[in-house]
């Protein structure tokens, strides 16, 4: 399984995906990290069948909400990846699908964020969601072992 954490450490809640990846790595689970830019994500998951990707998102949900979507369930109107890119994970999913490069099994863990200003702090609610996401992914991996 490939696990990718996305985000920008300098922009508050946008670091959520990176922190999840680091926590998992600290627990001995290999992970990759990246900014969340679409082509970079596509390069990482190309030729992988089973992928979890974690990123900060903004939808109409309460801050700290942990969303888990499969590609079909990814909402059209949310901004997955609050990082400063025109093309993010939602576009990576759609473009990969068009090019026949979408991993057979893909789950997007979206952590609802609010503070994305330069050098802002991560919100406490987002920190709690990070811990929940880490636990969920660890359980999933254990259940397969």
């Amino acid at each position, binding site marked *: 399984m490939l696990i990718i954490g996305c985000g920008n450490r300098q922009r508050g809640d946008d670091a959520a995906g990176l922190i999840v990846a680091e926590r998992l790595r600290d627990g001995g689970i290999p992970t990759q990290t990246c*900014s969340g830019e679409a*082509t970079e994500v596509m*390069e990482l998951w190309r030729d992988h069948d089973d992928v979890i990707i974690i990123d900060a998102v903004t939808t109409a949900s309460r801050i700290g909400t942990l969303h888990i979507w499969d590609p079909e369930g990814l909402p059209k109107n949310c901004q997955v990846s609050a990082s400063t890119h*025109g093309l993010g994970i939602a576009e990576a999913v759609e473009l990969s699908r*068009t090019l026949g490069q979408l991993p057979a099994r893909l789950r997007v863990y979206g952590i609802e964020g609010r503070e994305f*200003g330069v050098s802002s702090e991560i919100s406490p609610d987002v920190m709690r969601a990070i811990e929940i996401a880490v636990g969920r992914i660890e359980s999933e991996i254990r259940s397969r072992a």
Partner: protein
Amino acid sequence: MSGRGGRTIKVDTLARVEGEGALYIKMAGDRVADVKLKIYEPPRMFEAFLRGRHFSEAPDITARICGICPIAYQMSAVHAIERALAIKIDPAVRLLRRLFYCGEWIESHALHVYMLHAPDFLGYQDVIEMAKDHRAAVEKALRLKKIGNRIVHLLGGREIHPISACVGGFYKVPSRKQVQELVSDLEWALEASLETVRWTSTLEFPPFEQEYEFVALQHPDEYPLNEGRLVSSHGLNIDAAEYEDRFVEVHVKHSNALHSVMRGKGSYFVGPLARFNLNFGRLPEIAQKAAIEAGLRPPVKNLFRSIVVRAVELVFACAEALRVIGEYEAPAAAHVDVANRAGVGQAITEAPRGILYHRYAVDENGLIVAAKIVPPTSQNQRRIEDDLREYAGHLAAWPIEEATWKCEQAVRCYDPCISCATHFLKVRIDRQ
């Protein structure tokens, strides 16, 4: 549209620019009443964040301003600080920095030409729609970008927010063998870039030309990346140290970002079109030939042809990377030792989307006491407004959706990296 009632064109989100903000155009009949490029985030956070930090941290901190052009930020930072500290770098390090920058240009230009801008010209909502009919073009873009990533990865340690460039050189340099492993990919990329020039030259370009003052670096015998004097199509010729004597950032009420203007003049144009027009003779022969065959001869004043010029710069970046690799021998030391001392230094380098100015003042302990960063998008913002003021008038009779789309296409000619200037960008046009 004379005699017709006013109307509103509104685009809340300008997609396919790096970031998010808002462009607002108000029209009264066929007259453009107002144009405002709005930016939402205080743009000077990083300058404040740098104060009190050691100069050695500046390249890594500033690299995090933008996920698309982190090397530009690193390069302007290291050059400005090296100037402040009167450091001379090894010629082999200088070459490596050119290679590093070529990697970023390849990544950025491939992304913009194919995935952000081409959909406008071909009538698609976005690259996802475009990929259904132009799969080969999108796959070419992805492979080109990956090759740029390989260069950046080799020299930077990781693709986004590279960490290996430092004041005085690099923390670590690659061996000759390692850089030569890039050659076969770059040879493919050069060919793909030539195809990109041909492909973009067949697109349809709205007949919109303006009398721009183009501003770019100029080096005696190289197409500019890391160094040179700052010149313009209207006679400017200055050192980076004189930049703030000739350019000033002004605060505008409708935007958090500062607009950079030429003192006593106004807007100016930075980026590929400016570099091309001011440095055509310094392009390698293969890029000059490709440009001429594509119908480009300086001065190119049609904003929309910037997509072809960007493709020509892709040819340059691949050819230059191959040239550098051919000459490269690893330096004896990855970097020179740098001692703390007080000083002030300025540098300008050519980010993919235009000149990026940095100034640092450091104290005797090496701590930054002042920092100033003027990103390319801040420099083009006033120019974007001026263009839209003119161009929106040409579109007065168009249906609102199409006019909006054309205006967005015009803005994207500048490849605005709003994340450099601020965080997110949105666009809106009102007709009354």
